[in-house]
């Protein structure tokens, strides 16, 4: 695996993890707002 592919992979993993985290927090707070 080249250095560039590695960097692209790490960036994609960071984005997927960040999106997953933001998505889950968003859903939780929506649930709290409707209580």
């Amino acid at each position, binding site marked *: 695996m080249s250095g560039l*592919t590695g*960097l*692209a992979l790490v*960036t994609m993993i960071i*984005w997927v993890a960040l999106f997953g985290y*933001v998505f889950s927090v*968003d859903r939780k*707070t929506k649930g709290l707002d409707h209580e």
Partner: protein
Amino acid sequence: MKVGSALKWFLFVWMLGVIWAAFYWVHPAEGFIGESSRIVFFHVPTAWVCVLAFLVSCIYSIKYLMHRDPADDFRAAVASRLGLLFAVLATVTGAIFAKIMWNAYWNWDPRQTSITILLLIYAAYFALRSAVPDPERRAALAAVYAILAFVTVPFLVFVVPRIYWSLHPDTIINTRGTNEFDPRYTMVLMASLAGFTGLSAWIYSFECRIERIRLRRQEEVL
């Protein structure tokens, strides 16, 4: 699927496309070591979101002083927090670029110095908020401070780095008023700017929701 949910998934796919294009569609720019020029697609948008968030904070601070609505106070605070977070990210990505290009994370370049001053100014905003226990007094003082803090932003971000000689590469619109970026670079950068703006708007909306819930619960307790 609701529109909001569809937009979030669109953002997810959009940013995956931006990452792919940033690494595989554009070629490394001339005059840069290795692949270091690609960091521009993540560094510039973080700096952009930082300025945008500080502007939002200033607008809600003005609104608070006009209407004294606690919601405007927390909207301003959330925007400042988001701006501070993205200012840190811009500093970190800039330092990584500096290490590759100039072999040192920190060079006291005008841009590095001005972002440090900006970070300190907005860190002091939160020190001020935590130092005043009375909510109304805190909100009023923080609003005045946020307005004054934003006055420094155009100088520190746009003026000072252009007055002094800097190691920093040309911005999209350079000091000669032209855009000498490769068209592919401009396209991916604009796509990344749009993606980061969308992401920050999303984070901002749920951070405001959290603050609204907190305020409502405090009122219920009282």
